């Protein structure tokens, strides 16, 4: 079995798995990073979203072979201590109910904030539009992203 090397949360990892294995299962089953969630396996729900070179991707749709040499950020690596403006805003707005979909939501939001410092409600709803939350946390996500943007503008990092 070929070994594939990728960088996850700043650490180079060599993975020996079938090159067709989706990154989602590499992260969860091989690397023990269970913060990336399995919700549908087909790219419909967004729970498995991670950042690839800073851009959001559905890790269930990325075969290991394609991940070779790339840099990924998972929810465990978004900050050392939960201090990313999105993470803090999520707590302040009491966004999470069951919380299962939230790692994907937060990473998508972090990517949006990195490219749009002050997104409108429509831009947030559109960027996160393909993420599903069965608990209905959507209104609070919109508030949290706006709050994170204000915080970042006031001096925090994006």
């Amino acid at each position, binding site marked *: 079995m070929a070994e594939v090397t990728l960088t996850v949360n700043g650490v180079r990892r060599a993975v020996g798995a*079938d090159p067709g294995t989706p990154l989602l299962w590499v992260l969860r089953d091989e690397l023990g990073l269970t913060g990336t969630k399995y919700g*549908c*396996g087909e790219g*419909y729900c967004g729970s498995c979203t991670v950042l690839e070179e800073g851009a959001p991707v559905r890790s269930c749709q990325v075969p290991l072979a394609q991940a070779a040499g790339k840099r990924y950020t998972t*929810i*465990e690596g978004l900050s050392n201590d939960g201090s990313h403006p999105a993470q803090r805003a999520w707590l302040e707005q*009491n966004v*999470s109910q069951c919380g299962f979909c939230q790692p994907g939501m937060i990473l998508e939001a972090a990517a949006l904030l990195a490219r749009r410092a002050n997104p409108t409600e429509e831009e947030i709803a559109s960027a996160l*539009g393909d993420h*599903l939350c069965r608990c209905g946390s959507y209104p609070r996500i919109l508030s949290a992203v706006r709050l994170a943007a204000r915080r970042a503008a006031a001096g925090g990092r994006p």
Partner: protein
Amino acid sequence: MSTRRDFLKVSLLAGGGLLVGFRWTEAAEGAAAAGVPFRPNAWVRIEADGRVVLVVGKTEMGQGVRTALAKILAEELDVDLDRVEIEQASPGPEYTDLGTGGSSSSMDGWDPLRAAGASARALLVAAAAARWGVDASGCRTEPGRVLGPEGRAAAYGELAAEAAARTPPETPPLKPAAERRLIGRRVQRLDGPAIVTGRARYGLDVRLPGMRFAVVARPPRFGDRLAGFDSTGALAVDGVEDCFAIPGGIAVVARSTWAALAGRRALVADWRAGAGGDFASEAHARALREAVAEAGVTTRRDGAGRAALAGAARRLHAVYEYPFAAHGAIEPVAATARVESGRCEIWSPTQTPNAVQAFAARTLALPPDAVTVHVTLAGGGFGRRLGWDFDLEAVEVARRIDAPVQLVWSREDDLVHGYFQAASAHRLEAGLDASGRVVAWDHRKASTPHNARRRPSREQLADPQFLAGSSWGVNDQPYAFPAVETSYRVVEAPVPIGPWRSVFAPSSVFARESFLDEVALASGRDPLALRLELLGADDAGVPRIAEPGGARVDRLRLRRVLETAAERSEWSRPLPAGRARGLAADVFHTETYVAHVVEVAPRARRRPGEPPFTIERVVVAIDCGVVIDPDGVAQQAESGVYWSLSNVLGETSFARGRAREENFDAFRIATFADRPRAIETHLVPNDDERPHGLGEPVVNSFAPALANALARLTGQRPRRLPFDLAALG
């Protein structure tokens, strides 16, 4: 160690802490009266280092139960909320009735947690007073510390051992409501930091050394039986280790989830058709419609019942239909099990840990105490995890291999092979007198009253009381009609039916509150005024308290939520052209009162799949008794709107004995694009002294309020869920 036989047991912890054992439910009173020794089933530990650990037997599924229960304790114990750690209880002799359902956790935990917190606080104060040689009345507490005269102070942790040697007070003083610091105030969820950093552990996140992953190939259609299978292809998949039959299907065991899924795809199974393989929901819907053409078993009769319709000056009737629906929690069901040397350990996001323990023990022919169940966080529950089918599958695989195993349901498994909210049809008929007053009310329901895969007996299916228990929202309707008859007709289906958020109520309340709106329109009445009248607003002869079908309804409180929703939504103020409002209300059997007003407008630009309307505003008025956290109530109110909206937009339908909606491309969950522009939650003041449930009560009246708004906006009345969006456009 000292014991208040009726409610408390105090002992010293190793390391010098204070252990307070108490009982979760009022069952203790009965036990004490019957002379049974007091046995705690809930615990608080105050460690010598000042940490407070609450052992909780409730499953966190997003309803915020861990935070709510910790708040109740912290308030009376007088500690900061961030000092409270939650430890999840496992079934055992002390925990014989764990379980989370029925929106009852805060309600049931209120009295025992307050008593335990207040008792522990009194013990700590008494210990401090004794140490200082002062009277306890000269001492008070601030969060985590006892303060005495002349600036004396001692932390709870350092007093814990001395407190453990004392006898708890007979009636610990409870904090007056005006002095509460936590109850009624907004706090941040205790589980929040773990969730936003990815540290939160759900059922799928259990990781054990040497573990395997397994999926099960299940019957493609209802009734299919396994005649044989060829595992050659599956075993050729890299990482697949074993394939074998277990009850319900063929397990594929592998070194990773992905290998197990790939192995299952490569498996060739021979399924033989049985009964139910031709089931189609369209034919079933027809059978339900036909069933309500006739009255069934009467579940309630007031006055002359249905016969009163004959004397009415005018009669109106309508039929409403409601679909099957999967739960669709984003975390598919999964459990992890290890069976070795006569012991079994299970890790599961279960809502019913004791049943998991009992059935796992029975499956393995082990005594229950040889089975340990660890309850994880659940990525949504909604009633699905009241079933233990997935737990037993994990056990069946684990007993056959020499490693711990995580039994994973794929999304498709979860949406196709779970159990479902039952489809139903409702026929309502009202008799009006010459002045337009409703004098007779007839509500017939037809559905499949199974619950959690247990098929009712023939006797139960004919038993009015059993059927009344499956008629929430029908027989326990709150309105004061002079004559009422409600009935139920059983229509069988091969679909596994089980608890779903709000269980039997959503369909019934949709039908009831929609029909009341039709009655109002047809008789030229305002829907709010009609409801208030039926709840005795202008008639002292209407009793304030009604007890229909074992429920308890305070009509004044229901009127108040209606009035609050109306006032906040400016119900009496006309809307501009192209806007419309609808109203609906419900009281759930947990005595939580909810009213919704929904305002709609035509959607200007419509993309494919989008409804032809937008929801401009949702006003929710709630009376849930004592408010533990106003933001927690708002969160549940928002959740109820989205849950119900998903039900308005989607369903699970069946063709040839199988669910059509296999993944989230077809199973519709409301999303950002569907969002109401605003959801406002308003708490209605009340003099109740207890909190009541929220998770389920917030669901029921949204869909009919939306339907009532759309009927005004479009002239087309949606009488079926999911709504026919083409007909409304």
